[in-house]
């Protein structure tokens, strides 16, 4: 490894809590505390805290901001109210995905983008070189992000917040102090549970983290590592950049057609994506359920009657569904729900079936 790993403002708190730290996207992050399955269950049953400060945040404001975002992203930014959040993607002209992200409309002409940690430099280069006329600010380094996720998230955040958080709807955002810390309170997440993502200044992160842990004791709060974050999002079939989507995949085959809005006008990748839409994607990202105990992992071949028809992008044991599940790109003729396929694991085809997703029902606030 050439460059030293970066650390979030919560690094010391993780080490003190006995977390196992691993390299992830250029960062030294907690992969687990008590154990992935136990942490996964804590989020589904009570509430978990995630340090996702490694993620990147860009601000763009001024009269050029909306136009810049419309030309860069696939979703329709003009549809956003102030205080609304939108899932979207940056695409290359060939339709491949630069990154997936969330777009926040914070003011009349003020927006924030939240991007994947491993893509911060690439995305910054991308947005500033393709929409450099707008006023951009990369606030990743000074911004920390704590996700509070689970059925008790509203109780916990509500107890510490000065404002009423029950009125913040799903994919809505509002400013308010939490545990005395100025916070951008976003009702979003990556687990399929109700919850919040709390954006704070880096120097306030440790104070907020400690307050959430302390106050959350009565709710059964637990710190959650990236390992459980991955199994939680897999059960929801949420795509992970670098695993399920990347420069070689387009949004339509990834099942992200709902964030592509060609009617809004021109944007990077539009023509290529519209060609795919007209012809129909050659392959589709599907959910697979293994018929027996077998862990399908990223890169394993998917076969039909011995012939290769696809590739696994993510897979694990799903603790809440108690099944071995996976996401895979499968040639369109074999992608229908109910199709029997195989996943080649150590040279042996293990039976798998295309199933409906999410694997686990979503319980996000509606």
């Amino acid at each position, binding site marked *: 490894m050439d460059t030293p790993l970066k650390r979030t403002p919560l690094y010391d708190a993780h080490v003190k809590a006995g977390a*196992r730290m691993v390299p992830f996207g250029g960062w030294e992050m907690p*992969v*687990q505390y008590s*154990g*992935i*399955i136990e942490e996964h269950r804590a989020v589904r049953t009570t509430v978990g805290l995630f340090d996702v400060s490694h993620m990147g945040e860009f601000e763009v404001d001024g009269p050029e901001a909306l136009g810049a975002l419309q030309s860069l992203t696939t979703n329709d930014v003009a549809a956003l109210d102030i205080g609304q959040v939108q899932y979207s993607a940056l695409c290359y002209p060939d339709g491949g995905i630069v990154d997936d992200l969330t777009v926040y409309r914070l003011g009349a002409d003020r927006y924030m983008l939240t991007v994947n940690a491993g893509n911060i430099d690439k995305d910054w280069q991308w947005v500033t070189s393709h929409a450099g006329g707008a006023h951009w600010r990369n606030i990743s380094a000074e911004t920390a992000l704590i996700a509070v996720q689970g059925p008790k998230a509203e109780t916990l955040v509500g107890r510490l917040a000065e404002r009423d958080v029950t009125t913040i709807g799903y994919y809505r955002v509002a400013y308010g102090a939490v545990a005395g810390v100025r916070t951008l309170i976003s009702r979003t997440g990556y687990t399929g549970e109700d919850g919040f993502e709390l954006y704070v200044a880096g120097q306030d992160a440790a104070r907020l983290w400690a307050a959430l842990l302390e106050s959350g004791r009565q709710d059964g709060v637990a710190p959650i590592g990236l*390992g459980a974050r991955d*199994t939680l999002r897999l059960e929801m079939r949420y795509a992970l950049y670098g695993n399920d989507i990347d420069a070689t995949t387009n949004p339509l085959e990834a099942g992200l057609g709902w964030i592509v809005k060609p009617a809004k006008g021109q944007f990077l990748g539009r023509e290529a994506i519209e060609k795919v839409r007209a012809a129909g994607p050659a392959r589709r990202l599907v959910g697979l359920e293994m018929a027996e*105990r*077998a*862990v399908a*992992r990223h890169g394993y071949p998917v076969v039909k009657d011995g012939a290769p028809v696809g590739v696994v992008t993510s897979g*694990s*044991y799903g603790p809440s569904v108690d099944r*071995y599940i996976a996401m895979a790109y499968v040639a369109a003729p074999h992608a229908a729900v109910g199709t029997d396929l195989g996943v080649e694991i*150590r040279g042996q085809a293990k039976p798998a079936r295309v199933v409906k997703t999410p694997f686990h029902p979503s319980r996000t606030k509606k």
Partner: protein
Amino acid sequence: MANVPAELKYTKEHEWAKREGDRVRVGITEYAQEQLGDVVFVELPKVGAKVTAHQAFGVVESVKAVSDLFAPISGEVVEANGDLPKKPETVNKDPYGKGWMIVIKPSNAGEWDQLLSSQQYERFVAEAAH
């Protein structure tokens, strides 16, 4: 430091071996299961299979990783723990007890003396951690 029972022998691949008469019971160490994290899959050879020292005889998978299981000594598999494929978490809960993997009837008695003592294994783990 993880528990390393003094009466067992060990490999650098983090298996333990226990002599039971003319047979040898095999599993993975507490340190190994800690490093793996939650075990969700175990694949073991069938009774009657031949295993070779330092070569893979099975697979253990955690949520995050796939690891081969290595035979401490050569011989024939005379027992395999049939509970593990159904209850892989037993490997985490009781690595030296109910989490055993296979019992081998050794074909080369001399290999036993090549295995690490508990002190040697502890030292090996301590060095690997740095």
